[in-house]
């Protein structure tokens, strides 16, 4: 009992001492103690980001790309030609979104899939397409063109939420996948 108390005391003191990580204030110790919450990717928790990015496409959780990629994507100039569309934002909105995204980019996250994304990217690489990340590619390599490009309800691998039914909660587990017009997906 005494040992347990000491252990808790040590844990608590480290949690106070460790720097707070991420916008939601998840410290290293808290992360250690909450296994279930760190399996996937941190869900989007910024309303402006969800609204602005989500009005045109699935609002990708920032933890799916490293900081160097987001910096490329979210410069004012880059947004004027955002994959073929003009997606420029008012300066103050852009600032808010940049701050949120940079704070939650993959390399700052303890979530499992963010770790895997970072591990599969070289330090000098800055991919701007999530679909070009080796880890993401590997996870989808069994898919056929008929399931994705030729599937009128999917069209592109970039439409995560076309098949990942819980993508809005940042859950991408196999069990939650349903490819439109195809039978239950099994890895």
């Amino acid at each position: 009992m005494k040992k347990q108390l000491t252990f808790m005391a040590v844990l608590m003191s480290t949690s106070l001492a460790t720097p707070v990580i991420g916008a939601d204030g998840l410290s290293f110790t808290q992360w250690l103690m909450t296994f279930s919450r760190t399996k996937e990717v941190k869900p989007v928790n910024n309303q402006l980001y969800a609204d602005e990015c989500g009005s045109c496409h699935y609002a990708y959780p920032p933890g799916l790309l490293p900081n160097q990629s987001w910096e490329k994507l979210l410069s004012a100039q880059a947004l004027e030609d955002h994959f073929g569309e003009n997606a420029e934002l008012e300066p103050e909105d852009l600032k808010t979104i940049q701050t949120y995204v940079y704070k939650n980019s993959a390399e700052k996250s303890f979530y499992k899939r963010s770790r895997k994304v970072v591990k599969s990217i070289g330090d000098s690489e800055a991919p701007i397409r999530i679909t070009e990340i080796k880890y993401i590619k590997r996870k989808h390599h069994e898919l056929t063109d008929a399931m994705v490009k030729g599937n009128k309800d999917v069209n592109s691998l970039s439409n995560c939420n076309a098949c990942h039914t819980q993508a809005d909660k940042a859950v991408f587990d196999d069990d939650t996948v349903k490819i439109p017009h195809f039978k239950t997906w099994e890895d």
Partner: protein
Amino acid sequence: MTLRTLMIVAFVFLAPQWANATEAARALQKEYTAQGAKDFSAETGKLKWSTQVQNSDSSKRSCSGCHGNDLAQKGKHLKTKRPIQPMAVSVNTKRLTDTKKIEKWFTRNCKWTWGRECTAQEKGDFLEYLLAQ
């Protein structure tokens, strides 16, 4: 009696939404007027809506290229193929209700389509045209 009740219900529920779009559009038109624009015309707006402008990549772009000419229908982005919800206020009550959003999309789409920002006069004409749909 039933018809009358229905009409009252319809008025109560639908009128504020129409009023919203009109209010937001009129508020912006007032700003445009202060910038020197005047006599907004749905006719001019309609004409400009389908004006084809040559793009640097040899393709032609216009508002209708992505939004279509029947604004009660869905559109499709010329380049990304992304579906675009109808622009007509009569079928899409969310349209033209937020002045900040309207300005944001004017800036983005004028630049993308025409390669420049639209003038206050052009924006006012577009709003006049869109309100009539």
